[in-house]
């Protein structure tokens, strides 16, 4: 791995790379100049040829998405950067914003040129105060140096970027909920079709891309689609930032080629599980992606291979549990997260996460019944793919996967009437935490 030379994270270690001077010194905005010298359709072709796929979780081909929007008849058109990073275990976008904000702005500018957008938006997670500060400064610098505003980079293109902060809702990362939120509404998802590429922000054709996705774009333009396509396997090209956390010696963001084996990411890059403990379970791409086990450590970290292994690459957020951790407790904490973040619009997610939270809590704290295990599997079945959006589907992942691989541990909970691995820290909340607890208390109506 050592010889691999980072791309998106290259500037992270150099001081001042987050300022426009530092950025320009290290070849910044070359990609944009290149793009502006090309026709929009050629830019789109380049991105298509690079094989770049969305890094926000769904892995949709970026060039294709741009093409849909470019082809859509109506105007104006918008580019929206999804910087709402909320998937548990994921922290790459935040660091990209804090350490190299111009890289993102350049990507946004290129996307805007490609689809013909005059006003772009960055939807930033509200809790990212420092990232917001960095981004605001970068935007000011870019206006100052003519990379934003009228005639960007000496071209005849105008571009304004509006920074919009969220206010605490994971669901607002879902692209249609994000648009609702950006329009000043509750962050609940919209029916699809029509897709945002055709009917998006204010009903206009809209490209929505993740921070990491857009941050890769300047390099594709500057160094060529073939170079990018040459990295990683054929269907999952380029480099990927893996966010490794949990029971590893050196948690952090590690950029590596797509298809790098999980073992390399966990053991070599992140220093492996401390105290010579074994990997018990891990998520390839955040809480919404099914747990895998130490049997899957040789799986290459790319969209196809991870899917084949029965999970999803998601955001590339690797959360590691070791043998001393309780999967029931972990599943409980994840489920409490989904219950808290469920937008409430659709029945299966709203009621299903409520139900599962209650059962898992009983399991972990005594009061579990052996039939509960199958009830949870079935409730999961009744939710899966029947939810309005993917949040509810994601909520099923920890349930189904943990029961699939660790049913014995669940039954053990029933047998001993509680958690057999009382080597705390406890993961799940101390008492049942229902969705929107704060809200309810403030509305002063729910009695439980």
């Amino acid at each position, binding site marked *: 791995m050592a010889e691999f030379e980072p791309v998106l994270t290259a500037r992270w270690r150099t001081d001042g790379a987050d300022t426009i001077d530092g950025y320009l010194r290290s070849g910044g905005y070359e990609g944009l100049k290149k793009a502006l010298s090309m026709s929009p359709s050629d830019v789109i072709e380049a991105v298509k040829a690079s094989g770049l796929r969305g890094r926000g979780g769904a892995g949709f081909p970026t060039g294709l998405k741009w093409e849909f929007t470019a082809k859509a008849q109506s105007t104006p058109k918008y580019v929206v950067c999804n910087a709402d*990073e*909320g*998937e*548990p*275990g*994921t*922290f790459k*976008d*935040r660091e990209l914003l804090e350490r190299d904000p111009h890289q993102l702005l350049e990507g946004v500018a290129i996307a805007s040129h490609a689809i013909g957008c005059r*006003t772009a938006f960055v939807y930033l*997670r*509200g*809790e*990212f*105060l*420092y990232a*917001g*500060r960095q981004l*605001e400064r970068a935007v000011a610098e870019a206006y100052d140096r003519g990379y934003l505003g009228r005639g960007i980079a000496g071209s005849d293109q105008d571009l304004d970027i*509006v*920074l*919009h*902060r*969220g*206010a*605490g*809702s*994971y669901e607002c990362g879902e692209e249609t909920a994000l648009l609702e939120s*950006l*329009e*000043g*509404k*509750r*962050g609940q998802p919209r029916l699809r079709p029509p897709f945002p590429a055709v009917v998006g922000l*204010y009903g206009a054709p809209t490209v929505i891309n993740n921070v990491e996705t857009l941050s890769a774009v300047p390099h594709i333009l500057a160094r060529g689609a073939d170079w990018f396509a040459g990295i990683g396997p054929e269907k999952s090209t380029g480099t990927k930032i893996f966010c*490794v*956390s*949990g*029971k590893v010696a050196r*948690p952090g*963001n590690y950029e590596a080629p797509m298809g790098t084996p999980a073992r390399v990411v966990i053991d070599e890059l992140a220093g492996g599980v401390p105290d010579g403990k074994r990997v018990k379970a891990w998520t390839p791409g955040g*809480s919404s992606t099914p747990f895998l086990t130490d049997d899957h450590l040789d799986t290459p970290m790319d969209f196809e291979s991870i899917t084949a292994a029965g999970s999803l690459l998601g955001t590339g957020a690797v*959360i590691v549990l070791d043998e001393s*951790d309780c999967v029931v407790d972990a599943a409980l*904490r994840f489920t409490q*997260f989904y219950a*808290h*973040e469920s*937008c409430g619009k659709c029945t299966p997610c709203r009621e299903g996460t409520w139900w599962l939270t209650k059962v898992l809590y009983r399991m972990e704290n005594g009061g579990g019944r052996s039939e509960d295990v199958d009830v949870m599997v079935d409730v999961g079945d009744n939710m899966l793919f029947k939810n309005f959006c993917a949040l509810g589907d994601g909520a099923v992942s920890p349930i189904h996967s943990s029961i699939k691989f660790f049913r014995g541990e669940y039954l053990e909970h029933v047998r001993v009437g509680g958690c057999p691995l009382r080597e*705390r*820290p*406890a*993961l*799940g*909340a*101390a008492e049942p935490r229902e969705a929107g607890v*704060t*809200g309810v208390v*403030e*509305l002063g109506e729910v009695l439980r």
Partner: protein
Amino acid sequence: MAVLSDELRAKAQEVIDRYPEPRSALLPLLYLMQAAEGHVSREGLREAAELLGLTTAEVEAVATYYTMFKEAPTGRWLISVCTNLSCALAGGRRVFDRAVEAAGGQSDDGESGLTVEEVECLGACDAAPVVQVNYCNYDRVTEDEVAEMVERLRNDDVPEPSRGPKPVPHDATARILAGLGDDRG
């Protein structure tokens, strides 16, 4: 008695003008109300509604959806402890319990100026367990450290965060979140 000062009212208009459609300004406007009062009061909701020509119900529907809008009075120092899995694996839950204990409860008693909340993944799992004070990050916080932080904040003695400038009080933070600019040193 209007919630927004003349100064903030002028800012409100700037915020509205930022967007192609006025309603997009609702989230920033609610932050403005929070900047004025430390939380979003009934009057704040009504004023936001009137600024955008919405009904109060429409605005409250939005305000109650998002966790960062506080409808109840909130302490000068909002201490958010992440207890999602990565942080919990590093003891986040005990850090939270300890913070609550040190602050003498979760909600501001009006005296302490402290509010403690348990929050979902803050996107900084490499630094677990993570604590935020008015959305400024403190990395790898131990139980004892959180207890000490709480004590210092009680006396407005603000600890140096892991990145970026020191946090400012909750209402001043809301100004930044409303997009009025981050003029912290």
